[in-house]
Structures are given as structure tokens and as C-alpha cells.
């Protein structure tokens, strides 16, 4: 791949903003999502009985009245699945067996001929609880006397890079001990200490979770689900049910928004356990919008205690951080979020002395899971604000401060890893320039205040060191191509860039390639998960390898046919051509049927099929005590967002005028799609920054509906979003590409907070920046004056 990063000529259609391959289906209503699939007369519906208490012992579950209701076929309880399930830490039962740990925890399920009968029957299930004292705050949860939510923590199967503390509510403790912060403080001219708070927010995909499971008479399972992770779902469910992966088949149609909520296993397990009770019948389980708010993954809450010290010339010397994650009832996914956050806790800065503790704390809150950014939005909220505060103390321009301290290629970062080349400084320069940083801009009215702020970020794909991708390429008789992949199209455009990469490598027109969708674990090649912004890079490498494999076979066969050297041949526009002899041959003449040997001796070749895979080989572990290691992650995507806004001091409303969003993507395979991700990320980030929090009172969500959990609508968007693509190639990415799906929503909230602070002289330390919060902060400041 060396030649790639040096090459300035990219084969078509790499780097071209081709039309999305799924757009036509989606605008005509033809595209099928899981709830669109038709299952015929045998379809049954499952509904789940859920705990109304945040923490309780289950004393008794009685499903008899439910079973007696006409139309009910079966019921399940925790008795029906006895193994734990989980991705990085198996701490969860599919249906609770002895204890419930959050409001919404599944206790029983009822299967019936209609959704309404199943729902009615659920209300007839009798559950007796013994209510226990809940843990509602991670600071409470780490206290010695706090109720113990997982007494069996020591017995859970856990990934070897996670460090739980049995006997406590700490599911993972990640540490960084680098240099000597205590000694460094005395050398600092400026020290700022501040605590930041981030509430739970929700992914809010437009399509709620839905899964249909069918178990046949031999126990084999088919699961149709709106899923980012068909292979991981197959794997986790197989492990939980003690089955072979080959006896579970997951089919994953288009996903109507995931943002991480449809990674791993959340509701799919309940569908499978229910389906086992009614062999031969598909059982559909879909969440209402309210259930989506109550029971689907939430983004973890965070209390971040942060301290940064710098010299008068602006050089950051030391940083100390304590993260207390409100991780929720189960941390099977959250433990890795807290790890990734620990090893990212400095933000993209060069800091020689670092002391960080990231505590993943069980609470009786909804289950914290992966949400776009995987801990990065949560931690950058505080990091980018405290950096602004340090710059303020130094009297230093905030862009200059960041340019002085930001990581560049060759720097050692917080884990001791040497940074690969990155374009972060370029992102900072371009984003700040785009909003005329440094130019004082006037407010549009006397009661408004205008301010500019920025925030930078970094993120690496957080995944096991051996997360793999694979792909195959197969020709049809007319030389059109089936491209087999295991990565999902969740809106980010993966199918389109996959098609582009295959077309470029094979040498065929773009529209000759079709993705073999829906992803189906029975037929599709393995893909770890569609998360971590990893597909363009990881799956892309697999696709390129598969296409190269096919191409090599083709050239070998045609070269033999022409009695030439394969190195003199190429495939262009669906034709094999020879540079030497100028012979040409359409692919369709040989991709299935081969070519005849001379002198009527027979045939040579056959159906062309290429395969490829990719798995990073160089991730090293991190020392348990110091968090140091040679290569913690595969690579980082970095970027910067700059915000120009106005605040209406009469009501606290924020109006976003301009948001510039610059990210180093290595190589934009499809620039328009990259820009679209940046725009969507800005709006989702701004929405979480200004509008969103799941309000919990005694563990009960108070706003579990669109009426009271507001998200950005068309009238809430910035006046102007300026997406900026920076390209510093990734050495092992296809044509230098790395991912960008998550990153555009990471710096938005702190950039807005920094701009508000610039506008008002008031800094708000807890998200969201609702109009009420901003207004009351202004009042408080005026009161002090």
C-alpha cells in the first residue's frame, strides 16, 4: 500500500462524489427495513414485561393469567435462558432471573397472535418485587457502603483488556500513569481545575429497534434484525445459548439509523428466547418509541474531574483526570467505552505528564452503550472547555494555544504511541479561518451577544485488537459483479464506497457492481461490526484485496490465452487490454465460462471469484498500571469544529450562525458523502448540546417521548455548515482513507459551549445548554455584577 499514499492519481471512481447506490430504492419506498418484511400468516408478536423499579429482587413471576388470555401462545421468563450475554463483559441475562437493575429491564415475555393481545397479556403478568436501594449516581456508586449491583462481577467472563473490581460497582478501571504530574504542577505557571457533567442522551434513530426471530423444529434460529452487527449478534447469542454460530442465521436489512444503538445485542435476544417457545413461527418484537427511550442503549453519563497545568508560553505540562462514568445497569459494552476514554483522556494534545483514572461505575440507570463517538463526545465536552479556560488564564488566543499543543505526526501521545501523520493543525487552521476567527463580529440586536468558539478532537476505532473484515467478489455471465460484504448500510454510505472501491480495483464501470445485500450471516463474508468508523478502512482493505485477487485470476487466464505476460495486461472499463499487443477482450467473454485452449485442447479458467480479508496485526496491549504501550490503536481521525453563534439574552436561546467542520479523513473516497456526514454530525452534535438529556428521577425517565425529548428539526439547524475535507493519507488505508462517521459529532458541544462563553463571559459546565440554563446563567452573572 506504500505506493498509494504517494500517488496523486486515483483510479476512477475513487475521490468522486458518485450518486449513492441505495438512493433510488430509498426515495421510491422500495428499500426494505426489518418491519417492512412480510412473514405471512404464521407471524406472532412478542411483547416484554419490564421492571418498573430501578433496583429490585424478583421474588415471583406468574404468567398464568397471561397464558389464559385467548390469542396468547406462550410466555417466557428468566427461567428460559440461563446464560449471561455481553460483548466485552458478560453481565446480563436476556430475561432477568433474580434481579432487575434498571427501569425497563426485561422480566418476562408474552407471545401472541397480535401485538395488542401480547401487550394486554403482559399487563396480566404478575411480578412480585422486593425493592432495593438504587445507585443513582456514579459518585455514590463508588462509595464503600453503596449497594452492590453485581455481586458476581468476579465470575463474569470478561475480555482480557478490561479490568473489573469485584466486590465493588466498578466494572472497569483504566489507568494512565505517564511521567510525573505531581512534580509537573510546580513547574506550571497556570493551573486550572474544573468538573464537568454530561447527562445521558439517546441515539434516537428514526427507526426503532425491531427483530423477528424464527426457531425451527431442530432448534436452528433465523433472526431478522435492524442491526449494525449481524455477525456479533450471531456470536453473542450463540455463546449465550450454548449453540454453534452455524446454527444461527442473522439477516440484516437496511437500518433506519443506528448511531451505535443497534450494535451488539440489545433487544434481539428477547426475540430469540421468545421464538424458541413457538417453533416454526416467526416472532416479531418491536419497540415503541417510548420503549426506545426507556430500554434501548443510552449514552453513558459522565462526571469528569479535570486539572490542567501549562507554562506561561502556553506549553501544556500536565493533566490529571478522573472520569466517573454513569454506566447504567449493565456495562457489557460500556466497559470498553470507559477504556477508550481513559486512553484518549488528554484529547489530541501533546502532554508529557498524565494521570488519568477512568471508572466505569454500575448504576441503576438505563444501559450505557456505544453512541456515535464512543466516549469521545462525553470527554471532549470537558477537555475542550478546560483548554479554553487555560488559554484564557494565559491570555493566549485559543487557536494559537491549540496549534502550539496539538499532536502532530511523530509526537508521542498519552499512551506512548507515536502518532502517524495527521492533519489536525491543518483542520484547526482551516476551520477557524472559515468563521473569520479573530475578527470581532457584531451581534444583530442590542439584546443579543455574538461569540466564536472552537473545539478539536481525536478518536481511534475502539475495538478488540483482532477485529476483522472480509469480502468476496463474484462475476455474473454479463460481467456484472456481486460484491459480498458483511458491513451494514446504516445511512453512512458504506455500500456506495464499497462499490466504488471494488469498481476502481477491478477496472469495471461503477454500475456493474451490486452489493449482495441484505447482509446475511449464512452467505455474507464475516465483518466484526459496523461501528467505530472502521468500514471504509478495514472492510475497504478487504474489498480491495478481494478485487485484486479476482483481477489477478482474470489477467492470468487472459494472458495465457494471448500467450502474453500478465504484467502487460490491465482491466479497464470492463475490458482486458494488453499494453503490448493492444489486444482487447470483454470480461463477459471469460468471467464465468473461461477461455478455450489453443488447438481445440480444451478449456482454461472458470467462474472468477476473489476473496480478501483484513485484520490489523499490530495492536499491542497497554500496561495495566500505566496505560502505556507501543501501539494502543490502529489510527486516529482528528478534526476541528469552529462555531459562530448568537445568544438571545432575553430568553437564553442560541442561534448557530456558522459551523465549520474540518476533519482529516486521509482520502475521501466519496467527498460528497464525507461532507454529508459532517453536516449530519454537526446537527446531531448541536442537538445534544442544546436540547437533549434523558431526565432521570429516582432512576425513572421523565421524558421518554418526542414530546419531551426534543431533537433538532429543520428549523433548528445552523444557518450555514461549512464542511472541510483535509487529506493526510493513512498508511494502511485504501488509497489512504480512514473513517469519519462518528467524528463530526464529537467536538460540536464543546465548540458551542466555548462560543457561548465567548459571547456571554459565562461558562456552562453541564450539558445541555438549554435556553433556560443559559438564561439563568446570565441572570446569575448579572446578579453577581
Amino acid at each position, binding site marked *: 500500500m506504500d505506493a498509494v499514499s504517494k500517488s496523486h492519481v486515483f483510479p476512477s471512481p475513487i475521490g468522486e462524489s458518485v450518486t449513492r447506490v441505495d*438512493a433510488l430504492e*430509498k426515495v*421510491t419506498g422500495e428499500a426494505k427495513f426489518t*418491519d417492512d418484511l412480510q412473514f405471512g400468516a404464521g407471524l406472532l408478536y412478542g411483547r416484554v414485561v419490564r421492571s418498573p423499579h430501578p433496583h429490585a429482587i424478583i421474588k415471583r413471576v406468574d404468567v398464568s393469567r397471561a397464558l389464559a388470555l385467548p390469542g396468547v401462545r406462550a410466555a417466557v421468563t428468566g427461567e428460559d435462558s440461563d446464560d449471561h450475554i455481553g460483548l466485552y463483559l458478560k453481565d446480563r441475562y436476556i430475561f432477568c432471573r433474580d434481579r432487575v437493575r434498571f427501569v425497563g429491564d426485561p422480566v418476562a415475555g408474552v407471545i401472541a397472535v397480535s401485538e395488542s393481545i401480547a401487550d394486554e397479556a403482559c399487563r396480566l403478568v404478575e411480578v412480585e418485587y422486593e425493592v432495593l436501594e438504587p445507585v443513582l449516581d456514579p459518585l455514590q456508586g463508588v462509595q464503600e457502603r453503596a449497594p452492590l449491583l453485581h455481586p458476581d462481577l468476579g465470575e463474569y467472563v470478561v475480555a482480557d483488556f478490561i479490568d473489573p473490581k469485584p466486590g465493588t460497582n466498578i466494572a472497569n478501571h483504566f489507568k494512565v500513569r505517564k511521567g510525573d504530574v505531581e512534580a509537573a504542577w510546580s513547574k506550571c505557571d497556570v493551573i486550572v481545575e474544573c468538573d464537568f457533567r454530561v447527562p445521558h442522551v439517546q441515539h434516537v*434513530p*428514526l427507526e426503532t429497534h425491531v427483530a423477528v426471530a424464527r426457531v425451527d423444529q431442530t432448534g436452528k434460529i433465523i433472526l431478522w434484525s435492524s442491526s449494525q452487527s449481524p455477525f456479533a449478534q450471531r456470536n453473542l447469542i450463540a455463546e449465550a445459548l450454548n449453540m454453534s454460530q452455524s446454527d444461527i442465521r442473522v439477516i440484516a436489512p437496511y437500518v433506519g*439509523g443506528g448511531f451505535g444503538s443497534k450494535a451488539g445485542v440489545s433487544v434481539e435476544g428477547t426475540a430469540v428466547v421468545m421464538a424458541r417457545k413457538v417453533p416454526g413461527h416467526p416472532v416479531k418484537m418491536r419497540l415503541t418509541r417510548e420503549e426506545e427511550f426507556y430500554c434501548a442503549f443510552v449514552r453513558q453519563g459522565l462526571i469528569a474531574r479535570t486539572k490542567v497545568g501549562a507554562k506561561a508560553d502556553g506549553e501544556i505540562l500536565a493533566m490529571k483526570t478522573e472520569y466517573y462514568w454513569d454506566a447504567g445497569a449493565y456495562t457489557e459494552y460500556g466497559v470498553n467505552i470507559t477504556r477508550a476514554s481513559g486512553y484518549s483522556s488528554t484529547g489530541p494534545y501533546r502532554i508529557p505528564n498524565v494521570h488519568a483514572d477512568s471508572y466505569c461505575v454500575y448504576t441503576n440507570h438505563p444501559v450505557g452503550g456505544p453512541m456515535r463517538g464512543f466516549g469521545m463526545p462525553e470527554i471532549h465536552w470537558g477537555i475542550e472547555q478546560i483548554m479554553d479556560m487555560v488559554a484564557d488564564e494565559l491570555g493566549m488566543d485559543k487557536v494559537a494555544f491549540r496549534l502550539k499543543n496539538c499532536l502532530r505526526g511523530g509526537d508521542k501521545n498519552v499512551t506512548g504511541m507515536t502518532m502517524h501523520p495527521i492533519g489536525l493543525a491543518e483542520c484547526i487552521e482551516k476551520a477557524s479561518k472559515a468563521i473569520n476567527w479573530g475578527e470581532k463580529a457584531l451581534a444583530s440586536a442590542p439584546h443579543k451577544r455574538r461569540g466564536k468558539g472552537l473545539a478539536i478532537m481525536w478518536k481511534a476505532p475502539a475495538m478488540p485488537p483482532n477485529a476483522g473484515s472480509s469480502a468476496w467478489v463474484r462475476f455474473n455471465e454479463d460481467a456484472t459483479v456481486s460484491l459480498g460484504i458483511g458491513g451494514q448500510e446504516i445511512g453512512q454510505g458504506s455500500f456506495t464506497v464499497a462499490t466504488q472501491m471494488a469498481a476502481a480495483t477491478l477496472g469495471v464501470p461503477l454500475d456493474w457492481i451490486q452489493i449482495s445485500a441484505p447482509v446475511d450471516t449464512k452467505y455474507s463474508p464475516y465483518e466484526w461490526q459496523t461501528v467505530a468508523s472502521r468500514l471504509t478502512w478495514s472492510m475497504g482493505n478487504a474489498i480491495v484485496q478481494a478485487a485484486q485477487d479476482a483481477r489477478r485470476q482474470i489477467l492470468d487466464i487472459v494472458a495465457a490465452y494471448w500467450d502474453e505476460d500478465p504484467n502487460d495486461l490491465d482491466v479497464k472499463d470492463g475490458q482486458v487490454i494488453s499494453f503490448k499487443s493492444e489486444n482487447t477482450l470483454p470480461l463477459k467473454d471469460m468471467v464465468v465460462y473461461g477461455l478455450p485452449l489453443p488447438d481445440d485442447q480444451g478449456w482454461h479458467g472458470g467462474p472468477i471469484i476473489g476473496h480478501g480479508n483484513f485484520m490489523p496485526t499490530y495492536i499491542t496491549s497497554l500496561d495495566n498500571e500505566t496505560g502505556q504501550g507501543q501501539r494502543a490503536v490502529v489510527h486516529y481521525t482528528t478534526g476541528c469544529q469552529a462555531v459562530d453563534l448568537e445568544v438571545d439574552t432575553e430568553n437564553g436561546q442560541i442561534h448557530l450562525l456558522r459551523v465549520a467542520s474540518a476533519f482529516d479523513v486521509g482520502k475521501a473516497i466519496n467527498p460528497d*458523502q464525507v461532507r454529508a456526514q459532517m453536516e*449530519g454530525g454537526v446537527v446531531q452534535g448541536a442537538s445534544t448540546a442544546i436540547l437533549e438529556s434523558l431526565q432521570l428521577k429516582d432512576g425513572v425517565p421523565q421524558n421518554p*417521548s418526542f414530546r419531551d425529548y426534543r431533537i433538532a428539526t429543520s428549523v433548528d439547524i445552523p444557518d450555514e455548515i461549512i464542511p472541510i475535507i483535509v487529506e493526510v493519507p493513512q498508511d494502511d488505508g485504501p488509497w489512504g482513507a480512514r473513517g469519519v462517521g462518528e467524528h463530526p459529532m464529537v467536538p460540536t458541544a464543546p465548540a458551542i459551549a466555548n462560543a457561548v462563553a465567548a459571547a456571554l463571559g459565562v461558562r456552562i459546565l453541564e450539558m445541555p445548554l438549554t435556553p433556560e440554563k443559559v438564561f439563568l446563567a446570565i441572570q446569575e452573572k448579572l446578579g453577581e455584577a
Partner: protein
Amino acid sequence: MATHKISFTVNGIRETAEVPSNMTLLTLLRERLAITGTKRGCDTGECGACTVLMNAEPVNSCLVLAVEIDGADIVTVEGLAQDGQLDPLQEAIIQHTGVQCGFCTPGILIAARALLDRNSKPSRREIKDALRGNLCRCTGYTRIIDAIQEAAEVGG
């Protein structure tokens, strides 16, 4: 529960059905007629994914009872393209990359179609206002608004 015989058209095709009182138009379309382009996002009239035209006006089909559409003409996203020709809005939203996950797209196209039918040259402000009942979590709306503006310009 009472049932009712209704007759109506969907995308120009005459249909009849016998429906229980509590069936919504959304459920009738998706689960009785298997016309699944229109989506269910919230069932409370907040997200707009279920928007269809009823007698040429956009409505949240999750809040219309099936029995109420007796005699009505319903148009869903599947009815926008005519004789294999895409509606200019569909063309424009493709060209502007205004589609990502696609779940909000059918509702948005219907709401936009209704907007252009009642206001052929909407301002950007008017477009945003007309769409505020259609939630999108992926695109950030800008390209959708651009697409509608362009479709309006070409006389769509």
C-alpha cells in the same frame, strides 16, 4: 369491536377493506396492504415518518383512523413516480445526497410534494417550516432543503 367496510384509492388504485375501529391508516397501509414505503416512527404524530397525502393534503397517518378514509384518495411515496419517471423531488434529493439511512425520506418527500403543490416557489424559510414535522437524525436537513429548492426551480 365494530368493523367497517371502506373503499378508497391508494396511489390511484381502488381498494376496499373491512377494518376494525382502532386500526390506523398507517397500519392499514403497512400491515393490511403491505404498502411499506410509509414508515412508523413514533405513533404520536411527532416524527412525520408516516406522512401520506389524504385528499391531496399531508397528514400523519398514525393519527388517522382507517375507517375515516372511506371515500378518500391516499398517496404514499410509492405513488410519487409516474410511469417510471421519478418526481423532480425524488431526483433532486438523490442528486443532493439528501438521503442517508432513508427512513425519514418517504415522509419528507410527501411533505415536500404537498408544499410545492400549494406553494410553487417557497423561500428557504418556508421550506424549513413546512418540514418541521419531519424528523431526520442523519442528514442535518440542509441537503434536503437544497433539493426542495432546486425541484421548485425546475418547476417541480
